[in-house]
């Protein structure tokens, strides 16, 4: 860990000013940032502790949705009555992540911004374009078990590792961002994380000085909500593949299929074509297969993670079968 300055602003205004510098970072629960600082993967010169800001609220929005404050803990969010009733997929996704102890500290903003678990990213004696642009990617020809099969680039094949944001992508939630002055903006969760391209050092669209203030969930929709997380051990493991689904049926046909995937890409993967393909169809193994074909048509494995392609196919089929009541 490098020596660093520490500030604890009392207002959002102050915080935005402080985080305006590229060498400053916001500190929320610290469950990801502090670990990475110890490993010298993150080396901020200044830490802006945002925990004094009042951003922990979870409140109804005027149009029947729900706003989750950036500092609401994962535990509080997953336990919130409305989240459990109306956004079950979100509660389930959060509870599938990490451990109770971590979720007690982890926050909405921090979870969205958590960094990849790529083994080469966290080892500063190995090359990594994300950590050290231009140094090369250790994973592509190394151990790429955790890595992506969709939207990868020759510069980086890392995954966004989280669960919460996958459910939020399925729910089509919006990230609320404050900048310096009154430059506030909103970005759909589906567009918040980036693909690596040739700038893998940028995980998401946040600019210096910007702080996530909350996430807005749209008014609830009808349908079954499922979060399926495939992992080696039954808890305390990141997803090999995960599927968040909101699926509704109408007279034997699929009326809604909002799907997002974790463990496959540098971002929670949402492919709008899946919904187009599925809606109006009678659910069947063949239809699920076609959806998987579409989802995975450009998928590329890197040896160690080749298995994710068939696994994603099977996880999708299982989820859709579960949601539509089709026996496979």
């Amino acid at each position, binding site marked *: 860990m490098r*020596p660093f300055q520490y500030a604890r602003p009392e207002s959002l205004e102050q915080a935005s000013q402080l985080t305006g510098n590229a060498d400053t970072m916001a500190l929320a629960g610290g469950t990801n940032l502090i670990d990475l600082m110890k490993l010298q993967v993150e080396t901020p010169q200044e830490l802006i502790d945002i925990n004094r800001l009042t951003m922990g609220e979870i409140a109804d929005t005027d149009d029947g949705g729900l706003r989750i404050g950036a500092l609401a803990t994962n535990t509080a969010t997953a336990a919130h009555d409305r989240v459990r009733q109306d956004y079950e997929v979100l509660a389930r996704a959060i509870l599938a992540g990490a451990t109770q102890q971590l979720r007690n500290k982890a926050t909405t903003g921090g979870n969205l911004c958590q960094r990849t*678990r790529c083994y080469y990213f966290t080892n500063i004696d190995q090359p990594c374009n994300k950590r050290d642009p231009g140094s090369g990617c250790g994973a592509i020809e190394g*151990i790429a078990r955790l890595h992506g099969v969709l939207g990868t680039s020759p510069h980086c094949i890392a995954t966004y590792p989280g669960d919460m944001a996958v459910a939020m992508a399925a729910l089509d939630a919006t990230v609320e961002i404050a900048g310096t002055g009154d430059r506030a903006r909103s970005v759909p969760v589906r567009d918040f994380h980036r693909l690596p391209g040739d700038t893998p050092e940028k995980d998401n669209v946040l600019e210096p000085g910007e702080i996530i203030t909350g996430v807005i969930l749209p008014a609830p929709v009808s349908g079954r909500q499922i979060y399926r997380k*495939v992992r*080696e*051990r039954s808890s305390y493991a990141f997803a*090999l593949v995960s599927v968040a689904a909101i699926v509704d049926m109408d007279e034997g046909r699929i009326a809604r299929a909002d799907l997002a995937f974790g463990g496959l890409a540098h971002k929670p993967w949402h492919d709008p074509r899946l919904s187009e393909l599925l809606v109006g169809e009678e659910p069947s193994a063949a239809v699920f297969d076609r959806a998987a074909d579409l989802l995975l048509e450009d998928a590329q494995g890197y040896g160690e993670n080749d298995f994710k392609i068939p696994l994603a196919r099977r996880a999708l089929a*299982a989820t859709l079968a579960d949601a539509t009541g089709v026996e496979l």
Partner: protein
Amino acid sequence: MEQDKPARDCDLDGMKQGVLGKPLSRSEGLAKVTGTAPYAAEYHVDNCLEGVLVTAPFTRGTITGIDKDACLAMDGVVAVIDDSRMTARPAQGTADEAPVQQPQQVCYWGQPIALVVAETFEQARDAAKHLKITFEADELDEIPLDPQEAETENNQSTRQGDLAQAMNDASHSVDGRITTAGHASAAMEPHAAIAQWDGSTLTVHASLQMLNYNISELADSLDMEEENIRLVSRYVGGGFGSKLGISEETVAASIAAIALERPVRVVMSRQQVFQCIMRRSETTQRLRLATDDKGDLTGFGHQALVSNLPGEEFAEPVLQSSDFLYAGENRVLELDVARIHQMTAGSVRAPGEAVGMPALEVAMDMLAQESGVDPVELRLRNIPESHPVEGTPYSSRKLAECLKQGAEAFGWEAGPRKPRHTRDGEWWIGTGMASAARVHNISEAKARVTLKPDGTAMVETDMTDIGTGTYTILGQIAAEMLGLPREKVLVELGDTQFPRGSGSGGSWGASSVGSAVYVACTGLRKTLGERAGVSEDELRLKDGKLADGTSVTDLLNGGDLSEEGHYEPGDIDDDFVAAGYGAYFAQVRVNRFTGETRVERMTGAFGFGRVLNEKTARSQCQGGMVWSIGAALTEALHFDPRDGHLVNCDLAEYHVPVNRDVPDLEVIMVEERDPAASPIQAKGIGELGMCGGAAAIANAIFDASGARVMDFPMTPDRVLAAMPAS
């Protein structure tokens, strides 16, 4: 006392106190859970400096320069130490001499090369990351890293008869290739040491399993006399083999403390523990089993390829129990070691059987399937009369009892397996079983037992308690022999000022040091008998009193009565094959879509001689079964194929089972005394719980889903790949 013949009568059985074997809780448990039991790094030492190890970012080569000046100019930095006596790798268990030194010669990625010492830990850690080194690294393509491609050496070879012919002639046979991944000990407490030097004596608080060997390893490393060294390891937060020998942090802290004349603490980071302590070697095994039409083994072949660094003597003893477990006249047992430049391979809990037994027991299951003989029956049929090659008799062996009692308790449905017989929604459900076997190890040990005029007794030995219950059971043995309530016996361990114990390793601690305590108590009883004027047989001691009501303290004449017990194994191991045995039964569910496997229930039946404490023994069995679940389903070290560095070096990515992976574990301890094993008729139980259990799970995966996975761990991707199309 040297044991040359079986201890048919053991005094313990005639005692009156009735405390031995009782399920007492661990005597140090409260101190541990309340945080008052200090672990190595937790002693408060004034004026203590903090050291952080610097590791090599390359695989093989030579350090040519270390820019100390820039580092020394940083805040708080006191020294950069690159002494050639520092160790490049940990010592193997029972090495008894310095491990490989000269850390400037780098043999594996992540090898410690220097120590940065500063006033605070944070300063030392930052400075360590800033230390600039120059080196000449060998080209990666010249460095052997893949065991399949590297040069190999033969380590063990037993051949009898003609296995190829037996395979040809067999009514049923199996020829399978099974692999197991490397494992880490993953002990909770990282390696740590605080060294203090007073000008003549070096005192080191360290996290070590075998002080009796560690002291000579450290003395040899530092070129010092053992008399001038004191090692203290009163509490050890798990060892599992990783702390058998001294490691880099203990030697580095010692050198620094002497050079700087101030106490120095060195705690390895989690990543360093993973990357430079000990790995269990990966293995590639070939199993050949041949039977006649009844399922009696006629041929038995078990060959394994393991790996280690050049120059290391240790080779994962994969075939250790295959040597004697089953019949089969025509035999090939062969172990080869590939020389590769990955971190040191050494002992991780149950070296050998932990990976050899699961492979053998998967092959046995395949044979059962092939021959149509029930898996339990197949094993029962093939328990040999005497050692299949040497003809030596077995000591006490409860394998058949374990198989039968385990099957009964579990509700084993005998008969050939019919995969996919039971489905519950997305899940296939199935059962599997396996035998357990683990060689019996025992070693020399000393312990002093002292009766005090205040009515208490004290047991002292430099034996360690690595969380297994040693404090508790040694107290129980002494309490039983001396007729005292357990609370009246104080046990002091983990300090080289006490008589040399056996150390904790190879499951031998309880039987070795337990025997030393027993021998010491026998001596005390002799003296007490003489003083009381009764023969030893009539010396019935209970609650501090003789049968006639005389208090034992009255016989002490106001002074201490002390005896040092010295136990030596003797020649008995030439006359008997001694081992612990058992059987596992597991029920799993396998997800038909994702290949995820969850263990639903598991039963283990074990015979390991006298049970010294029913609770601590049960915990050891359960701990071993938890490790079996990890070995079966999740645990694997992943090494980069290009530079050999360990990539998953923390507890987030090296997947030991979590609570939710572990169902209720039923443990049956089969009543047994093994007179040939030790004077107290006990064998070891620290490892037996994981000597085959992974196969019960693997075999249950087959029964459930039809997937015969040949590679451990059986992660979802592997199960899916092996799953037959439905």
